[in-house]
């Protein structure tokens, strides 16, 4: 005992054993009267076969009652279907109840009504040496008399490969070529619309809010259509030198599609009071929480995205509407092999 205590794992085992022992002792006391009449101690190799016929009238009554209950629930389902039609809860209760009563009937019958039997089945051998040899021999005898076996096998292999290739090549026509993979609906001069089709006016873009823009004349259902538009005060704007004129009056536009896994970025935080909110204005993708800084050219500050959020150059036309000043210079949406990424 004392040397056991040196090993903590034995302690754990003993604690577990004691807990289980308590349960067993309780069960043993409950079962005691039956146990006293139990069979004599088992031999190591005992014959477990037995068969008992319960002949249990009460169980038969229970089964019959359960079957009738199932019928009641079944009729209930039809009644609910006719009367209430779309009450999913009552429909589910009725059908589920019918099935549950049937299940209970089958289980009670299977355990308490029909003969209970423990039987022993011998496992036959799977591999029988002579038969395996015989099969191999039969297969080989099919090739008797063929002298140029290698040629035939080779030619057959080539024919099979050719047919498989022929069968698989139409797969290529399932999808188009990648020619337009870099295209988005955004080109120089395309106006930015809201989701009801009204063009955005630059002076209506307020600091502190975010706007979802769609391309004029473009399909809003395309992945590259959505834009995020924000206005930032100069304090937060640190764009790379090459992009200095991309943000007229501090208005910035970014692709709404996360460059990680193509979810729409719809979280924007803008601190009310920067020095206590501890946060800069930032976009976050709600799928995997990649976070980007709109003031710094979409730079990633947290999350799994492998590149920055693509920025779209903007201009304000003489009427005051927001327009794209050019296309995206990098690919929007998820990355692929050799995707066009920003230069930074």
């Amino acid at each position, binding site marked *: 005992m004392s040397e056991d205590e040196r090993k903590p794992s034995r302690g754990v085992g003993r604690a577990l054993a004691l807990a289980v022992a308590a349960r067993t002792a309780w069960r043993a006391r409950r079962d005691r009267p039956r146990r006293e009449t139990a069979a004599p101690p088992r031999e190591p190799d005992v014959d477990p076969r037995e068969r008992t016929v319960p002949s249990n009238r009460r169980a038969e009554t229970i089964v019959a009652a359960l079957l009738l209950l199932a019928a009641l629930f079944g009729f209930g389902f039809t009644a609910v279907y006719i009367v209430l039609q779309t009450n999913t809860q009552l429909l589910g209760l009725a059908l589920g109840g019918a*099935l549950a009563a049937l*299940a209970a009937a089958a289980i009670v019958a299977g355990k308490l009504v029909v003969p209970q039997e423990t039987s022993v089945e011998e496992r036959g051998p799977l591999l029988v040496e002579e038969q395996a040899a015989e099969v191999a021999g039969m297969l080989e005898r099919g090739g008797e008399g063929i002298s140029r076996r290698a040629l035939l096998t080779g030619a057959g292999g080539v024919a099979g490969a050719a047919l498989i290739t022929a069968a698989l090549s139409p797969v290529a026509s399932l999808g188009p070529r990648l020619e337009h993979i870099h295209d988005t609906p955004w080109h120089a001069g395309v106006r930015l619309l809201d989701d009801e089709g009204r063009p955005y006016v630059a002076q209506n873009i307020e600091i502190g809010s975010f706007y979802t823009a769609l391309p004029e004349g473009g399909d809003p259902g395309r992945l590259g259509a959505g834009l995020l538009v924000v206005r930032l005060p100069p304090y937060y704007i640190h764009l790379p030198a090459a992009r200095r004129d991309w943000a007229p009056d501090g208005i910035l536009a970014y692709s709404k599609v996360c460059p990680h896994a193509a979810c729409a970025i719809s979280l924007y935080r803008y601190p009310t009071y920067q020095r206590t909110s501890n946060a800069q204005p930032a976009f976050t993708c709600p799928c995997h929480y990649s976070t980007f800084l709109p003031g710094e050219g979409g730079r990633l500050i947290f999350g799994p995205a492998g590149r920055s959020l693509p920025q779209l150059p903007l201009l304000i036309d003489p009427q005051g509407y927001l327009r794209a000043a050019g296309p995206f210079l990098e690919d929007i949406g998820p990355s692929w092999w050799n995707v066009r990424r920003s230069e930074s």
Partner: protein
Amino acid sequence: MSLVQRYLHRRLERLIRWNEQRYGAARGIKSVMRYVFPDHWSFLLGEIALYSFVVLVVTGIYLTLYYVPGDSQVIYHGPYTLLQGEQMSEAYRSVLNLSVSVPAGLLFRQVHHWAADVFIAAIVLHLVRIFFTGAYRKPRDVNYYIGLIMLMLAILEGFAGYSLGDDLLSGMGLAIAYSVSMSIPLIGAQLAYLVWGGPFPGSSSFLPRLEIIHVLLIPLALIGLITIHLVTVMRQHHSQFPGPGRRERNVVGTPLWPAYALRSVGLLLAVAAVLFLLGGLIQINPIWQWGPYHPYLSENGAQPDWYIGWLIGALRLMPNFEPAVGNHTIIPNPFWGGVLFPTVVFAVLFAWPWLERKLTGDRRRHDLLDRPRDRPARTAIGAAFLSWVVIIFAVGSTDRLFVGLHISYSGQIHVWRVGVWVLPIIVFFATRAACRALQRSGAHPLRDWQGTVVRRSAAGQLDVVARSPERIEAPPTEEPVGTSPAEHERR
């Protein structure tokens, strides 16, 4: 014998004779009726999966009668006021109509969805049982591989079905699936274009493709594999746990007829009952609340169904590592969590039987199962591997944990980026220690304990505190048998 009984007896005999004159199946029927099922609840996990699949097929047929795989945009004018006048795809409208307008339509849709969740959960639990009891060893190795293939197909099948609704959540899920396909080096973009018929959200043939995959191709493959799986089980007979009178050479248990057949039908009905009760009482995937999907929309805390959760966890856990040479991206980030991680998990599962043969040199046929504790190394490796996957799975819900408990999200991510490697090591050693302790004490963690507990009294005597009904020795004493020495040698 009463008159009625005699009449029934004659009818039955005539029926059997009618059948025999045409099929001569008496020998087969007899052997099936005498087929022995060992008594242990864990052998029924696969049956739960099978019966969930039956419910899936039945409810799925009902759903196909209503579903329209159309991507053209329509304006909704139906009874559900919150989406009045909203633009949506035909597919979404058909699922919405099924849910709010068709009597019992929502019940069948919810039962179908619950059945899918329970189906894959039962498969996973079945796999865990198979792994920890060593049931994948010869002669059941091929059946184990078939099971793994069915698990992969089931996950794909579930995701395809989840995506058919074209609601906000499923649209976001498809966007992620598209990104994961795109991320495969070299061929990713072309592969995604092949599947989607063009750039996301895909051409108008995408939803019909997804539907035919979901309602025909994968179900057919599953039905074929399930058939092979079951025929193999019947041919090889069930494995069994060691016990009195149970040897490698025999199977001890309840024969199919009548007791086991009734119990199994009872289980089928119980599976259906649980799924219908869930479907009627607990709401699942209320697409009328999510609204339709457009690529510029998303919502916070979007999640996939649980069986995709491990991939979301991996995507979230992965740092922003995206190797690039200059401006040339080599491997886009979603590849790590979305492609590499599941590939590693399934590769390990597929390789394990071969790996264990290599490590132990044991190529014999095994029909008696191991108790997990009797193979501490395997159990510990399995527990560590399982904990690795489960941790990554759990990371998929860190955002909701943040909402519920206010534990910093970025903090959780940073902790788990280390924890995901450290914790499985701890689990390995803890499991091994637990196995050894259990071996010594003879306790059973789930069932009755076996053995004797003694306590040293003050006088120094050993008093028996408790004694189990009977003690079952660990199996290694018995030599596993094959049919011939030759079979031991060969694979």
